[in-house]
């Protein structure tokens, strides 16, 4: 596949750019934050996004989606990154629908994916149990009692938890933390007895939640896929998810950089536009180079998803690691080059660094993925 966008993809990207720049901007994010909105996104905007089909971009047509593939979803996520648009596009579409697509049976997909694609239901993944991403370390136990399972434990960093209709909860039906075998995925409705959500706002002003499960009774038909066999499908889903997050980081970093480059052309100090100082100009040029590299690996990794490449894990960790590095540098330079005004809440540039670090952390940060990249490369 050539590393260029086709016509359909260009149209999709431009449509997303136009819509989000009007309806889901940093200014909207600020309003949501300052109003103390519990969900952290605007349901009306989300409804419009789903009407345009964005929630189903990567979902096959057979399951009510558009079947544009992940390259398409990546383009929309990139634009969401540019505008810091708050919506369940990450939690329910990139994460949950992908996990369901990997793990669910045909009938489960039929039941869930069209509803997600239509924006009728919001599903979120409950995986993490400690401050760091370590999927195989999952320890929550799901013990069989008669014809059902009993789940108890705590899940952290569940995206959009306060607004979620249902959760995919990972738990152990066998094995010990670290084992490949024994991981199972369950679909739980939000109103399930014994399940409680403690909402919290992260530094990006988005809503996350801590799920506490106390002797929650789960029926066998709530298992997503085969019992104890979730880890492979989950692993593949996580590769896709990390590439999607890399797309968001790309948009976010590019926008922060472009705003900074503009500022360098406007701001005067010592009688000169500060972009004429070679110290700043060279750093900007280096960052431009890094962003071009970032753009290439994101597009390549997205295409590898859609091509079904068997080495996806390598591309996923490469894309996430590189984008973590670039996003960190781009957002740090954005504040430093803006100087004092970049430190003020009133100015918008500070919103980028806040969202960046959360996305960098989600499902494995730079340290995690560079290490994994080395392992995948055999050393």
């Amino acid at each position: 596949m050539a590393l260029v966008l086709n016509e359909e993809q260009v149209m999709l990207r431009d449509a997303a750019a136009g819509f989000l720049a009007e309806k889901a901007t940093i200014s909207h994010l600020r309003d949501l934050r300052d109003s103390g909105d519990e969900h952290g996104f605007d349901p009306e905007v989300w409804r419009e996004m789903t009407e345009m089909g964005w929630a189903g971009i990567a979902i096959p047509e057979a399951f009510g989606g558009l079947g544009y593939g992940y390259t398409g979803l990546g383009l929309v996520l990139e634009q969401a990154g540019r505008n810091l648009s708050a919506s369940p596009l990450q939690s329910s579409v990139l994460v949950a629908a992908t996990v369901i697509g990997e793990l669910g049976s045909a009938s489960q997909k039929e039941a869930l994916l069209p509803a997600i694609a239509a924006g009728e239901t919001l599903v979120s993944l409950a995986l993490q149990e400690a401050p760091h991403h370590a999927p195989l370390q999952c320890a929550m136990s799901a013990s069989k009692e008669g014809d059902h399972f009993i789940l108890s434990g705590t899940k952290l960093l569940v995206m959009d938890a306060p607004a979620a209709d249902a959760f995919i909860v990972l738990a152990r039906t066998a094995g010990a933390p670290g084992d490949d075998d024994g991981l199972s995925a369950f679909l739980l409705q939000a109103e399930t007895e014994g399940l409680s959500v403690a909402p919290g706002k992260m530094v990006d002003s988005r809503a996350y939640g801590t799920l506490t499960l106390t002797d929650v009774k789960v029926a066998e038909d709530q298992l997503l896929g085969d019992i104890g066999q979730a880890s492979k499908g989950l692993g593949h889903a996580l590769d896709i998810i990390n590439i999607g997050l890399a797309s968001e980081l790309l948009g976010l970093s590019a926008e922060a950089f472009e705003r900074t480059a503009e500022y360098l052309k406007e701001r005067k100090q010592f009688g000169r536009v500060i972009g004429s100082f070679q110290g700043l100009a060279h750093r900007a040029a280096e960052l431009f180079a890094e962003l071009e590299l970032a753009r290439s690996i994101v597009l390549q990794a997205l295409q590898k998803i859609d091509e079904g490449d068997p080495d996806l894990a390598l591309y996923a960790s490469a894309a996430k690691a590189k984008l973590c590095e670039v996003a960190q540098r781009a957002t740090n330079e954005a504040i430093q080059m803006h100087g004092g005004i970049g430190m003020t809440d009133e100015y918008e540039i500070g919103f980028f660094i806040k969202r960046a670090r959360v996305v960098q952390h989600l499902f494995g940060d730079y340290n995690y993925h560079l290490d994994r990249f080395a392992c995948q490369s055999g050393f």
Partner: protein
Amino acid sequence: MSNLEQFRQEVSAWLEQNCPESMRMPMSSFEDIFPGGRNPEMSNPDQKVWCDRMAERGWTVPHWPKEYGGGGLQKAEINILREEMSRIGARPALTSFGISMLGPALLEFGNEEQKREHLPRIVRGDVRWCQGYSEPNAGSDLASLATAAEDKGDHYLINGQKIWTSYADKCDWIFCLVRTDNSGSKHEGISFMLFDMDQPGVTARPIKLISGSSPFCETFFDNAVADKRNLVGEAGKGWTIAKYLLTHEREMISGFGSAPKIAVADMALESIGADASGRLANSVLRQNIAQYQLDTMVFGATMARVGDEAKAAGGLGPASSIFKYYGTELNKRRNELNLAVLGESALGWEGEAYSEGRVSRDWLRSKGNSIEGGTSEVQLNIIAKRVLGLPDA
């Protein structure tokens, strides 16, 4: 018994009698620092009692001359006072910009009348001072400031705007850089002026930062009045005083990197665990931490060396020029490492589970370290020009 031993006994006895019990408790928050002022904010009324008693002996500023209200103490005596205070855990009685910034400037550049008027009030904590330097269009290029002071015979009329004025909304007086003359180069025509903030022409509005609320303000002057006897030094020669104080400020800020902290490696071992050989499980993070800890150790050795050189040679060597730059960059690295080490628990903003976002707010706040008090770029320019002797662009 030597004089110094006798002095120690007297100090010890006086402190025992006069330092309130509550002022011997460790400070638990910023509110426990007493900045003085007309209507001082206090976490405890003993703060004022303690300050007043210390100020009476001039011990709030023990090294200033007695005729300006200071303690008039010698170095050895000051060390004894510090040691004895430290022995009973006595808090500093007064901490203010007046002591650390304006006082030194007045002692160096003020006339006798100004010293006699302002210094004793600083010692007593009667007046709380803020610093009016930066403007929206004069950040790194401070000398291009535009706040105008028009000569009206016995006073100046001041119009313009300052930014990053720390605690402007809570301070009584301001020492302020203003432009009295536009005709020459930008460094000429700047004057150093003192005036009361409690007047109709002055408004201060707090600035919210990306890390949350802050002591910084935007400060507006709309026909504010400064009495002419409060012009420090000559009109148009204020830049010399400003540069003198900037050096002070940079030395204060450069301390950031050196505060004792829990080793980040220990936090990482707790959060991420070790492998069989005892090495931190994530090898990439391990290297980043090792580089940080190495540079912290090496920076510490450098501060010690510069200190020892200063003692031996009586002045700061060229290595001191790197403090502000390196210390603040190091602190930013430390804060990024906190995020990497603590993961999810460092990324919270609100809620008890995240200590109200203490880690993330500290991290965001640290980004300002390399901007305020002279950006890292300005520091590098200074090293390049003054230390290395590289020519101007």
